[in-house]
């Protein structure tokens, strides 16, 4: 796969069809993969990487890159393709300046997930035929990728590419029996006290580093309300429980109906807060109240929050459902 992608990237860059390539390369550590913009064939030959550790969603980078001179080649996993499609819908990416190659994806992993398996002292990770060879200070271990998939990949919602110019590999389908809402469902069935305790436990760890916001392909505002002194709610430090709640509620609300559930927010959170749960709660509510809606599925779709029907549920539906006390 990596070689096919490299070949294609070199061919397009060499012919001048594209001016730059969005892909992945090694980060600080071998196993720490980072998004990268390649502008020369040499860079691609030496640094371009694609393997099961290439988690980062590249689509957001197009907000800037697609406004530059010349076309940008981007490699899109299905998740990234949904994000790009939503960004095109919102006019955030100039479609004509993008050459999108869809790539098939069987799920991604990263060092954090591997560490959760009890593997410590990782020095290097290589991959061969779906099996990770993990070199650690204490010796080598071989682990199949499917055993260490990230939660979002275990609960993969779709292997389809809503937008692409060309595909490498086979086009997949939406996953019908995806169980991504089971955790939201579990929390909904708690009592309000339990839910409050659960989220305080999670959100109180927030250090307001803004990593979730910065990585989120739906958070592409030119200037975030939280950074804008004139907005009246600009605050940067997480110094209080309210602040943590406020930031995450408003952020989730602003991306509601637009969030494609790519799971990047939770992936990058240094405090391992399961932020995707807030987004999934909105997605689950939208699906249940207004009919299934997958942002990014079709370019030009109307978000449920900019739409209505005359017979929508009244907000008191919230009082009537969910929670142990009402079950």
């Amino acid at each position, binding site marked *: 796969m990596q070689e096919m992608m490299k070949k294609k990237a070199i061919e397009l860059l060499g012919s001048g069809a594209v001016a730059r390539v969005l892909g992945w390369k090694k980060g600080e550590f071998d196993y720490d993969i980072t998004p990268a913009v390649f502008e020369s064939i040499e860079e691609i030959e030496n640094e371009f990487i694609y393997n099961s550790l290439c988690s980062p969603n590249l689509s957001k980078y197009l907000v800037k890159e697609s*406004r530059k001179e010349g076309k940008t080649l981007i490699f899109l996993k299905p998740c990234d393709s949904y994000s790009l499609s939503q960004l095109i819908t919102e*006019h*955030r990416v100039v479609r004509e300046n993008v050459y999108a190659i869809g790539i098939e994806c069987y799920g991604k992993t990263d060092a954090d997930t591997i560490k959760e398996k009890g593997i410590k002292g990782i020095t290097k990770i290589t991959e061969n035929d779906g099996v990770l060879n993990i070199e650690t200070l204490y010796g080598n271990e071989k682990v199949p990728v499917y055993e260490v998939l990230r939660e979002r990949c275990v609960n993969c919602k779709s292997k389809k590419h809503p937008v692409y110019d060309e595909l490498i590999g086979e086009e997949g389908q939406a996953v019908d029996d995806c169980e991504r809402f089971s955790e939201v469902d579990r929390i909904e069935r708690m009592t309000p006290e339990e839910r409050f305790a659960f989220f305080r436990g999670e959100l109180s760890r927030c250090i307001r580093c803004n990593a979730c916001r910065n990585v989120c392909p739906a958070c592409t505002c030119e200037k975030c309300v939280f950074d804008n002194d004139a907005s009246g709610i600009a605050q940067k430090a997480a110094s209080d429980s309210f602040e943590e709640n406020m930031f995450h509620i408003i952020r989730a609300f602003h991306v509601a109906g637009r969030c494609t559930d790519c799971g990047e927010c939770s992936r990058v959170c240094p405090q391992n807060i399961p932020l995707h749960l807030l987004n999934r709660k909105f997605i689950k509510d939208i699906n249940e109240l207004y009919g299934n809606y997958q942002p990014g599925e079709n370019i030009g779709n109307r978000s449920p929050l*900019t739409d209505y029907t005359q017979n929508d549920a009244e907000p008191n539906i919230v009082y009537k459902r969910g929670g142990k006390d009402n079950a």
Partner: protein
Amino acid sequence: MQRIGVFVCHCGTNIAATVDVKAVAEALKYEPGVVVSTEYQYMCSEAGQELIKNAIKENALTGVVVCSCSPRMHEATFRKTVAAAGLNPYMLEIANIREQVSWIHKNIEEATEKAIILGRAAIAKVHLNAPLTAGESPVVKRALVIGGGIAGIQTALDIAEAGFEVDIVEKNPTIGGKMTQLDKTFPTLDCAACILTPKMVDCAQNDKIKIYSYSEVSEVKGFVGNFDVTIKRKARYVDENKCTGCGLCTEKCPQKKVPNEFNLGLDNRRAIYIPFAQAVPKIATIDADYCTMLKSGKCGVCSKVCTAGAIDYKQEDSFVNEKYGAIVVATGFNPIKLDKYDEFAYSQSADVITSLELERLMNAAGPNGGTLLRPSDKKHPHRIAFIQCVGSRCDDGKGKSYCSKICCMYTAKHAMLIREKYPDTEVYVFYIDVRTPGKNFDEFYRRAVEEYGVNYIKGMVGKVLPEPDGTLTVRASDLLNGTQLNLSCDLVVLAAAIEPDKSARPLATMLTASMDTNDFFTEAHPKLRPVESPTAGIFLSGACQGPKDIPETVSQASACAAKVIGLLAKNTLKGNPCVAHSDELLCNGCSSCEKVCPYGAISYSDKEFRINGKMVTRRVASVNPAVCQGCGACTVACPSGAMDLNGFSNSQIMAEVDAICKW
């Protein structure tokens, strides 16, 4: 820092009896920015207003808070007062301490405390008020009516009567619309042509009315008072200024096999034609799909016989640009296509017809000269079945969910006319319900049943079977008798549902006028503003807004004209300054705001910005203040906070929240 004056009104004892007004004035004196705080018995009186005006001048106030009755009562009064003292009228806020305090609370202490808090909230808000000026825009004193049916004709005539110029754009070669095809009209049974054609002639002769026939609206720009419209004049290959309408060409044209749409294809016309004798304008049109000259360059008969030299085979579509102050939509309706209703054998048998086809068959100018004959064998039918609600009130996805409204009445009319003219013909009507609200409507239906002996059977028809002998077997259930019927008929008439004209949807997009899921235009308010679209300057006339019969259409058309005249009578339009505005530096150009705007007031353009020394092109929203009505839907849809609302800004509302919660 604002210099704020606070004026607490006693409203006689209305406020002063339960609110310690002196304490309120005293407490508010120490709020930041307040330079004068006083009370008076009746602030809205001459003397009270003088007091405010003098205080503004003496203290060089920049903002005013009046603690009094509801702003819905006297906001306008006090705005004028502060304006008279040289302040911007929007530098005023009202704390409602009558309806929200003195009238609903009995405890003086509690009421006084609440009055002070509401006063603080108003002071907090006024600190953030900015002077606002209502924009003015001139009104072009000319109206456009899109659609030349009875609705458009009536609206145009009424507008012209008031002295304003009106243009009618009609896509067909003649105005008149569906009503021209009708035979008689219920409930009075006068002939449609007799009452309609004089109105058509009035349109043609009125020097205020200009008719663009065989034309379509192709582009609309601008906004209320100032629309810029491009009209496409389709090539009719006949010079309108030369053609005298003599009709010789339509007799000599050798291409005789063109289905005649005026008679719904029940007979044929020529390739060059005038739709019917009373057409307005009476000008021939060449049907390019059938004309041999246009298709192969061989013929030219019409050109040879035309003494006026009006034929022009080289004519092309042309475009006219015109400015209008108001646009009326009168695009009307059509019966639905019946291809999904095969159970009624519409496509299999020529003797299964629609009600509109029956109108033509019965009309003296129709294909049979007014004698009712079966289309298949031209024989007189002896038993006729009418099937109601074909595609109306359907939730099976094939038809329309709504009631088409006119079918019950026209079917009663058809049944009655047939029974009167051909007493030997039996008439059966299969219905779900008979709906006849309307002046003299139920009496009309009862006459059909009681005097004319029309057989009404409650029950739906399951199937119509064409038999080898040319008859049609109608299989139906009679719900009242609980029996199944197999009725042998000679003619079956289907009351097809009506739907908005297909041209309505693209037109709505051009006009940014909203539509419902059935493609009917929506009103600004379903009860109180039924002839206006939510988009300012767009008005609705006739069936484009919902199914209507002729009396209702004409009333609505005149109501619509009254609204248009009201607009055109103004020289300028003064806007509401409390409108949304977009901060271009914050705008992402994501279109969220545009999607929730009910008025189409938001548009986007690419603009260049200097960011960090580099020029960057970005897509940004801008609000047309002449169109925006100030609801604020966009401000919440906007994630970046680029959209804000004058007079109710994010920071103003949050300042009120803060003031209320800080006690």
